[in-house]
């Protein structure tokens, strides 16, 4: 390999932020295990990530030392638990550069976060005095895209059924990019909300959002970005990206399952009617009616996933310690390596961008006409864990004319040796089904 000299004064190769991948791997106990007699090669982090010891320790410590319910106790344990829970909220807010921790609503996952926004629209549409930005009816439009996860399709389909609004969507190009050619028609004065995936969980595409944001502002609509696949893998700054809402989930970013985030602008969250009713989310309750707490608590009815939230705070600390910019670069290098390596496999067809630009480390492919279930099964026998199926993004499969795909996805602990193991495994698959 020849190295091209970069003139002095320009950014140099060594300026790329980096970290010791072996040291990071040592933090993840599960990476030491074997699967079917082979070292684990985990290429399914887009599905769920592994958890470092630092996060597992915090989870255990919470239950062993400060277990109590939050926001309702005067005793010491309750106070400490509340401080830990609210501390996690502040950490998450800082992680995405939110202006205030009160803009961070803890949810169960991204799906619940999107549903909260969809049901806030639904509930507002029933109340004439609600904020008009959240009122939907016949003639109004909701815009999504063809590359959404089911969690960013179905809630909007249901909302449109309830309100009579129309659901529209951006198509996807043959290269797996968002087709913005119809932007001005799609996003128009009838549009109330655009809900768009930031990074596709199946194609790996990272959508450029600025033109869409600009158009959304022109027409006075709202913008939600589904960041389930982006927040774990690249720096997110909600001030810089300038959406109205983002959602993401803890389990894809080194935290436990059961904890997710809805971030929204303070004034928008304040204008949204409650969705789930119950304890915590109230201001005062009488038999004749209730008034509600301000956000974020308004949207956190019932006892929340306390230890999971605290562990999400620890995960954010862990990721920040490694450095999100460095993680992004590591995955970019892995993606470039993997795209080159997969190109050497005969009859392999990649769905999504085949250059490591404007995409993340999630690569879906077909291997000849071998069914992905069969691909995944043979790879599993070699210890290689990939996802097979429609990845909860069936419209993408339909778009590319396949019932399912095989998907390899990377994270901060993934190595090029693991990509080599994938490529070797694919040769084995071809032998079995030759």
């Amino acid at each position, binding site marked *: 390999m020849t190295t091209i000299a970069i003139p002095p004064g320009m950014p140099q190769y060594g300026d790329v932020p980096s970290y010791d991948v072996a040291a990071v791997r040592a933090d993840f106990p599960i990476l030491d295990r074997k699967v*079917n007699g082979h070292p684990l090669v985990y290429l399914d982090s887009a599905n769920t990530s592994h958890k470092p010891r630092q996060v597992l320790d915090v989870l255990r410590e919470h239950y062993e030392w400060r277990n109590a319910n939050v926001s309702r106790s005067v005793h010491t344990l309750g106070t400490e638990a509340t401080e830990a829970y609210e501390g996690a909220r502040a950490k998450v807010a800082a992680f995405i550069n939110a202006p205030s921790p009160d803009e961070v609503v803890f949810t169960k996952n991204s799906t619940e976060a999107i549903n909260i926004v969809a049901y806030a629209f639904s509930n507002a549409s029933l109340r004439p005095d609600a904020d008009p930005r959240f009122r939907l009816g016949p003639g109004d439009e909701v815009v999504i895209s063809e590359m959404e996860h089911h969690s960013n399709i179905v809630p909007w389909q249901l909302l449109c059924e309830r309100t009579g609004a129309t659901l529209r969507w951006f198509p996807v190009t043959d290269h797996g990019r968002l087709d913005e050619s119809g932007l001005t028609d799609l996003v128009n004065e009838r549009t109330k909300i655009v809900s768009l995936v930031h990074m596709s969980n199946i194609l790996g595409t990272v959508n450029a959002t600025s033109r869409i944001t600009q158009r959304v502002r022109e027409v006075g609509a709202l913008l939600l970005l589904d960041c389930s696949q982006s927040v774990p893998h690249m720096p997110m700054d909600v001030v810089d990206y300038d959406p109205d809402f983002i959602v993401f989930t803890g389990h894809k970013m080194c935290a436990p399952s059961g904890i997710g985030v809805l971030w929204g602008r303070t004034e928008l969250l304040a204008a949204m009617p409650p969705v789930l009713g119950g304890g915590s989310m109230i201001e005062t309750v009488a038999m004749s009616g209730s008034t509600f707490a301000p956000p974020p608590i308004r949207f956190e009815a019932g006892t929340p996933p306390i230890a999971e939230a605290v562990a999400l705070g620890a995960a954010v600390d862990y990721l920040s310690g490694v450095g999100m910019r460095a993680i992004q670069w590591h995955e970019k290098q892995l993606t470039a390596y993997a795209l080159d390596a997969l190109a050497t496999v005969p009859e392999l067809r990649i769905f999504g961008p085949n250059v490591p630009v404007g995409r993340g480390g999630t690569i879906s492919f077909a291997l000849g006409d071998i*069914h*992905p*279930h*069969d691909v995944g*099964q*043979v790879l*599993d*026998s070699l210890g290689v864990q990939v996802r*097979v*199926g*429609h990845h909860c993004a*069936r419209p993408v*499969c339909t778009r590319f004319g396949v*019932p*399912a795909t095989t998907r390899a996805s990377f994270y901060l602990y993934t190595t090029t040796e693991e990509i080599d193991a994938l490529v070797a495994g694919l040769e084995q698959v071809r032998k*079995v*089904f030759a």
Partner: protein
Amino acid sequence: MQVDQLYQEIILDHYKHPHGRGLRDADDPAASVAEAHHVNPTCGDEVTVRVATDGAVLHDVSYDGYGCSISQASASVLHELLAGRPAAEAFAVHAAFVELMSGRGEVTPDEEVLGDGVAFAGVARYPARVKCALLPWMAFKDAAARAGVDTSPTEVQG
């Protein structure tokens, strides 16, 4: 777990060279014909099974679909075992196959009853794949019921 226990030669043979594939019209215009379309929502596999019957004998069991080697080979074996059989016998075979697939690898299959279906014994050890193997069989049961066949099994004579 060895993957070749799952991908027996018999299964790969049926997958690569399926028997009786394609939905067919009944030869006898008086026959009752019905079909069922089943989907595995986790992987997108689909199969349609069509049954042509006079109520006592399954004149034809035809199918079409797409999916993994296990689900498609299973449909081929289903056709081979059940087409042309008396309905009561067919449902005894059906029950034996379902029992085999629900057995987590603990059930010893009877080759006299299940024929090439015994090759699926290894599949029962992979819970994630049992659904694939059962997909055409469940579609068959629905199709037969819709065609008016009594779907309760009786003893099969080997």
